[in-house]
């Protein structure tokens, strides 16, 4: 279990003090996939770097499995870090080492005998599906393959926690999906607790159990992902969930509704049924659905008709059919 208590981080720069995190409190339970989402500069990377003490918090505590990191000696901290793997947007592989040697690296640090290390590294390469690439160098791999190697490397040393800082942000949608599936598999099969940092709601939606929305260095909202999508409470969460419905050309006033596909309703022609049943001229503003691990996930954003009677019919239909939805306000109205 990872407990973060009253954590703040202030940077002292030439330009003065800058508080990147303030009063962050959260607990990540064993076995879950926890998401941290926020806009650029919100403090996500700083927060995740505090979790393994690559960044030393200015205030507050980080407690992992009962050990308060701030109280550990330097050597104990290094040993503790071996149980916390980390992967990055830029992969950060050792360019002069083969794939196999890269995966062996954390095992060298843990002083595992070489033959055992090679055996363990091969197991992990098999897990990430890259057994045939063990003698390749990173420069010979695609971005997705590099991230797989990075995942294998991060997990090699009996890792209990995996921190992912924008691990899919440099990848195309297909590759992103395959990496997310891999993370899900790692979580399920190895029981690794995963913390996913991202600025893409899609990532949170596809693999996370719970998520924290971070804004200006503070946690704006923390909830189960289904709840977060069904009824986002903070402005920032709403903005992240309804990302592209904020230009005047897209909608003119009116209410916006977001239907979330949780894998149950996605095989039915939901929208078509909705329109036919309610006789409502619905406007599809944006839709994005994906197949993640065999389950369809995604959302559709609809513009409700101005006629409130018709709009109410739509809402009632959604309620009756147990389709999760949330209201988004038109940014246009707010901005005026």
């Amino acid at each position, binding site marked *: 279990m990872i407990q973060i208590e009253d954590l703040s981080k202030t940077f002292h720069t030439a330009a003065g003090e800058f508080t990147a995190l303030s009063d962050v409190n959260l607990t990540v339970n064993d076995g879950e996939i926890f998401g941290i989402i926020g806009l650029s500069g919100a403090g996500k990377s700083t927060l995740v770097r505090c979790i393994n003490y690559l960044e030393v918090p200015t205030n507050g505590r980080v407690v992992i499995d009962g050990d308060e990191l701030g109280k550990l000696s330097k050597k104990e901290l290094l040993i503790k870090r071996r149980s916390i793997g980390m992967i*990055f947007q830029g992969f950060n592989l050792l*360019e002069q080492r083969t794939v196999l040697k890269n995966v062996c690296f954390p095992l060298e640090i843990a002083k595992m005998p070489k033959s055992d290390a090679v055996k363990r590294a091969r197991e992990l390469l098999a897990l990430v599906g890259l057994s045939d690439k063990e003698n390749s160098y990173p420069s010979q791999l695609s971005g997705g393959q590099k991230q797989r190697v990075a995942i294998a490397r991060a997990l090699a040393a009996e890792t209990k926690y995996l921190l992912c800082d924008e691990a899919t942000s440099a990848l195309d949608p297909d590759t992103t999906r395959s990496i997310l599936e891999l993370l899900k598999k790692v979580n399920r099969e190895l029981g690794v607790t995963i913390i996913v940092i991202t600025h893409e709601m899609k990532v949170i939606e596809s693999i996370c159990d719970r998520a924290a929305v971070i804004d200006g260095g503070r946690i704006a909202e923390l909830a189960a992902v289904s709840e977060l999508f069904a009824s986002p409470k903070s402005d920032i969460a709403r903005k992240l969930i309804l990302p592209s419905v904020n230009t005047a050309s897209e909608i003119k006033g009116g209410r916006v509704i977001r239907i979330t596909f949780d894998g149950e309703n996605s095989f039915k022609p939901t929208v078509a049924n909705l329109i036919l049943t309610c006789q409502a001229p619905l406007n599809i503003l944006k839709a994005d659905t994906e197949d993640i691990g065999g389950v369809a996930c995604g959302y559709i954003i609809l513009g409700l008709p101005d006629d409130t009677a018709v709009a109410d019919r739509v809402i009632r239909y959604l309620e009756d059919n147990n389709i999760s939805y949330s209201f988004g306000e038109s940014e246009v109205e707010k901005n005026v």
Partner: protein
Amino acid sequence: MSELLIKLWESGTIQKGIWETVYMTFISAFFSYLIGLPLGILLNVTDKDGIHPMPWLYRILSIAVNIFRSIPFVILMVAMLPVAKLITGTSLGNRAMIVTLIIAAAPYVARMAESSFKEVGGGVIEAAKSMGASDMRIICRVLIPEAKPSLIVGSVISLVTILGYSAMAGTIGGGGLGMIAVSFGYQRFNDDIIWVCVLLTIVIVQIIQEVGMLIARKTDKRIR
């Protein structure tokens, strides 16, 4: 062709000059790296964004290196003769020259190495840290191996620079092609001897350059 040139060749003076130039260059380079490489590591590690920032130490080392680097070699060479005498017992000959060459080249090597280490991305170092690697392990297993191709390219440049220095050292008591060009060519008005030395130097530099770059290419796993 002047008679003297033929004589120098037949007596083996030119061959000896080639050998002296090559061995002065490589011996000096070897010891310059023995001092300069750790210094370069220290500069990189203690820099403000290094793996173990120590601003005061960085400042001291940096200033010391800059002082030695800013003195033109001809002047440093003469100034260091007493030091050379202290170490080798003489201020003449190749042994003394090697000492001055090392003093001049080590700071140069340190800066070359520092910039090679800078090329190693902060990302891999961060990754190593996240795995619980100690500073020493990061230096030995990440910084040096990842910078190796760049270090080799740097050493080619250093070798050529030191070779240039060694020719200058020939004017004040060192041996090698520099000495031959100056004392038999320039001072006795034998242009052909000067040109032979120039040509031989060019050939040596070309060989160092080509072989060095070949090794660098062979070592680097990033391109292929």
